[in-house]
């Protein structure tokens, strides 16, 4: 309290001097330029892909710094006494002193205490932080000097060098192929082992929508000449059934293989996605291409692959959509979204990030002009065409529209209350009948609604938006399983650089681990032992959902916080002599 009160006069002086010494702006600008090379480095390191943006940032940053510098020089002029200040102001004061002789300085007396900071530094970056950072982990790791030098070197090297590195990366990829083989082998081993039968019936892994025995039932009903959608057991889409029917013609032994291959395909797509994304994000810097490994080695994914969960089709579709939107292919990316929508409805929200990514890749501005509208309507039209095509093909498989109520209607109505890892099942089990429709609307709108605010907020970072929407889908969909979480978790690896900003990693990790391990235990206690009741399992699904919500919102927070730091510098501005706290307002 006392400190701040004392600081007020100092600040007043500073402000007064800034207004007085406007002419020194040029000087401060020069000063700023002196330190520019360091500043630029950091900017570039953290900046985005396009150069213009970077320049903008630089300007902003520059003006900000100059203000600071001005205030600093003002302070110096005021003779507050920095004995060690290296250089005197090189310019003579352009204005005559306002105060004539009797007062050597505007202050009647010298400052009661020395200014606490060693220098009115023009830019804070090249210097170590003069005060402890208010954040638990500083993003200082990002600006390791080695990395900077590495980058510099690389910049010097020409395209040959880049090519050489790509070769190297490919070799690395080959090295990682071994890991790929192990994932492949582990899946094959598990899928042909008795573990499979156990996993197939796990409600954590397969929901009524994706359960393998329901697909088998569909195939069996088709074999007996009964429409699979005349009952309420089969909720698989006709085209997927058609795929399996086709495979059945060849051999039933191919079913497990299809799932393994599908899973590896998702892994490969994510690998490509990660490399493309990293190229897009930081043109030359190699980001760790861990997301595919993250996907393929995730026990959730292995589990749902072995359990023959057909969520794999959604995951392939989503990964395809994201990869090809980064490649700028309208047709293929919308095909991915359309397949995802067709298979599990919720990926329709991914249309927004896909459009934005395509716009970014194709350099279409996010403005309301003719070009943009044309482009967006082109993408949407292509999506609609694909969807209509898929639905039409489905109609031709069984010559009836029954599948719509059995698949999409079933997703929306939540008529099957079999427990899963989501929030819907117990809520609607215990719901009062006359409120059921109302809450059904609330919950379903909730699942789709997050698309709008997130799209508006993250319109400049559509890839991250896609990741966020995948997470939201995995939490809010009506029949989620562990396999749904695998994809957003894998995508998170693309944003490893924001991890230092995460606030409650430990809690989320613990909650996820606990719920993953306790879910089968409580299920066993409730269903088989009879020593627990439904509330036990419900508590676990609540914890699981909460953990996912916390993780997602935390990642979003971290991302926005980092964005803020990119624009404003990692050290907060000084307000009243103390570092300002950065809060959401």
């Amino acid at each position: 309290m006392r400190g701040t009160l004392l600081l007020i006069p100092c600040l007043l002086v500073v402000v007064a001097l800034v207004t007085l010494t406007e002419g020194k702006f040029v000087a401060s600008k020069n000063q700023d330029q002196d330190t520019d090379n360091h500043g630029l480095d950091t900017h570039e390191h953290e900046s985005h892909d396009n150069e213009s943006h970077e320049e903008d940032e630089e300007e902003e940053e520059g003006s900000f710094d100059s203000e600071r510098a001005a205030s600093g020089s003002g302070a110096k002029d005021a003779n507050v006494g920095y004995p060690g200040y290296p250089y005197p102001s090189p310019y003579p004061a352009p204005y005559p002193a306002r105060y004539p002789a009797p007062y050597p300085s505007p202050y009647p007396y010298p400052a009661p205490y020395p200014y606490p900071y060693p220098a009115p530094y023009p830019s804070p970056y090249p210097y170590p932080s003069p005060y402890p950072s208010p954040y638990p982990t500083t993003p200082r790791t990002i600006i390791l000097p080695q990395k900077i030098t590495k980058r510099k070197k690389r910049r010097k090297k020409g395209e040959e060098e880049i090519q050489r590195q790509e070769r190297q990366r490919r070799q690395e990829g080959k090295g990682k192929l071994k890991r790929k083989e192990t994932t492949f082998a582990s899946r094959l081993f598990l899928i042909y082992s008795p573990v499979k039968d156990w996993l197939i019936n796990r409600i954590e892994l397969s929901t009524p929508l994706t359960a393998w025995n329901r697909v088998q039932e569909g195939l069996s009903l088709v074999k007996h000449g009964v429409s699979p959608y005349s009952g309420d057991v089969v909720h698989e889409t006709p085209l997927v059934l058609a795929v399996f029917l086709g495979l059945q013609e060849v051999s039933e032994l191919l079913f497990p293989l299809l799932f393994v291959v599908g899973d590896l395909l998702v892994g490969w797509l994510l690998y490509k996605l990660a490399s493309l994304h990293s190229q897009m994000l930081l043109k030359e810097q190699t980001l760790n291409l861990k997301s595919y490994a993250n996907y393929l080695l995730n026990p959730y994914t292995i589990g749902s692959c072995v359990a023959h969960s057909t969520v794999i089709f959604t995951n392939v579709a989503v990964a395809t959509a994201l990869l090809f939107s980064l490649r700028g292919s309208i047709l293929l990316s919308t095909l991915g979204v359309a397949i995802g929508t067709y298979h599990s409805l919720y990926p329709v929200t991914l249309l927004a990030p896909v459009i934005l990514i395509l716009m970014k890749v194709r350099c279409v501005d996010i403005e309301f002009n003719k070009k943009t509208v044309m482009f967006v309507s082109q993408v949407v039209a292509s999506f609609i065409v694909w969807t209509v095509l898929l639905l039409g093909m489905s109609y031709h498989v069984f010559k009836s529209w029954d599948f719509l109520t059995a698949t999409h209607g079933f997703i929306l109505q939540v008529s099957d209350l079999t427990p899963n890892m989501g929030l819907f099942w117990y809520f609607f089990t215990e719901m009062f009948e006359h409120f059921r429709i109302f809450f059904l609307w609330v919950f379903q709108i909730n699942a789709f609604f997050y698309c709008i605010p997130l799209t508006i907020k993250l319109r400049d970072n559509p890839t991250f938006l896609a990741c966020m929407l995948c997470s939201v889908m995995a939490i809010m969909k009506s029949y989620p399983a562990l396999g749904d979480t695998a994809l957003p978790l894998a995508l998170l690896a693309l944003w490893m650089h924001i991890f230092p900003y995460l606030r409650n990693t430990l809690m989320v990790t613990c909650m996820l681990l606990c719920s993953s391990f306790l879910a089968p235990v409580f299920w066993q206690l409730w269903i088989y032992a009879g020593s627990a009741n439904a509330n036990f399992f419900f508590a676990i699904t609540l914890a699981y959902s909460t953990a996912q919500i916390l993780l997602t919102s935390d990642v979003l927070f971290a991302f926005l916080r980092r964005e803020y730091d990119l624009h404003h510098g990692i050290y907060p501005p000084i307000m009243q002599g103390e570092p300002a706290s950065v809060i959401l307002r």
Partner: protein
Amino acid sequence: MAAVGGSFAVCLLFLSCSLAVKDVFHEELFMRPLKTGHVYAHFQFTTVWDVDIRDSKAFSHYNLFPKSFGQIINQYSVEELHLSLTQGQWQHEQWGYPVTSAPPGAELWVWFQDRVEESVDENWSGLTQALSGQFCASLNFIDSKTTTSPKLSFRREGVASAAGTNSSLLRHAALPRELVCTENLTPWKKLLPCDSKAGLTTLFYSLLLYSVNYHSIGVHLRPICQDPSCSQFSVELVQSLSMVLDPLLRGGSKFDWSFKRLFGRPIKSACPLATTSKVYVDISSNKSGSEFTVSPAFSTVSRQVTQQHQQHFAMYDVKQIINPSVSESTLNVVFKWKRRATQGIPPQLYAQRFVTGYGEEKGGITSLIHNRHPTDPLPVVYFATFPWFLRIFLHTLTIKSAGKDIKPDIIHVTPAKDRMRPYTLEILLTLPANSVTELSIQFHKGFLKWTEHPPDAHHGFYISSAVISTKLRSPLNYTGPSRQSSLLFPSDGTTPGEEVFLCLHTEILLISLPTPDFSMPYNVICLACTVMAIAFGSFHNLSSRRFEAVDSTKSTGLIGKVKAMLAKLKGKIFGKKKEEIPEEKKAN
């Protein structure tokens, strides 16, 4: 006296002429000693009314045919109706075949007239409501969730036109949980012309009637032909009451029985309105009279089953035995064992059914169907319905006999719709000779809403019996009416056809479903909504605000304001810092 009687007769004649319809009533009681020492008693009351069931105008004048029932079947355009209310499970392996098979609980199957083909479902629901009132049974709980229309089982038993075999006119439903008691018997008795005032119904002493091993009342209505050329039709209403009694439960230590011991009273009268009033006792197993004795004296009725095998029955004509002029004449059949053979011939076809698996997640249902015929394979129709909350997986259906897979000839499947219709499975398969065929299917248990559970949720849910229908050639231990006759033992002595249509009902099953916690709907709603609110809150917060640098010392919000106020107050009171600031200002 004679004059009065004569005028009464003339009156009657006049009445019958004016109505121009004829109806007759028969009452019969068939008793069979079983190998286990039990006694099977089957009462059958038959009313035959010479009207065409399709002629709705004919259903306005009633004589012997019960009016309340006639109005119901006319109102809902019923052509054939079979209702049974049963307590207990018939043990085919030990008891042989009953005259009419019935599953535990209530079973109703109805063929509607083809003129109501468009509105069968409305008629069905109206009929179940009406019958529910008529018989004081919970038949009103029959809805689309329990109703089926089997394609192969439950064929018509009466006259059928060629178009009438379309199963869209058939509705079948079973309520396995239904309990049967005197409240069902009383309205059933009221349909009889003599009620329980006279005739064989006087044996119905409610206290003893329900302390039995098996008890089943049935109402069967069908159109029949008046003559062999089938130019005119009649309506036949059969009301039957079957029971399996244990003589040991009626006191004493022997399996010997009499009417007095089993029913508490002898037969004191015949129904005066009945054309036939007869009691039969099966004495086929009493070869050379060494096994038991039956008294009083009887006349023997024989029936040729096969060329080698004959069935013999002791017959008492109640109308002749009980002389109204002698006040104390009664009929009390006394049955005494000499030597009881505990081993009998098991029936050719019988079945068992049971639930497999453990836990409340999944399970299976296995049926064992026995064909004891040494040489002949037997084609049977297996019909089973499962409630919608059992998610039956057809791909797990296995039919095996002696380790070999049997390929069914026909499979009809109607998959269940949630809260709409049950799962129906109908299989036509051929049982190999002298074999046990195992038919099993797996299911997952559905999760019901908390309001869909009955008050005693942990009791479990009943699964209605499977029905196995077949045509048996010359069954040894089957006694029943032939399809052509209305009586158990037609007086003209026609032998039943070589093939007998047979219907078996297996056991009903009890399955416990996983239950939610019924006590805390509010808590669950609150908790789930809280998690949703966490999500909404954090996303709303992050997407509607932006980061800003603020003075860390200046705390905002209510607490901050309060703090600032307090600080101001403090400054005012102590006036310490107040001095400093004006000084500075002055200096400026």
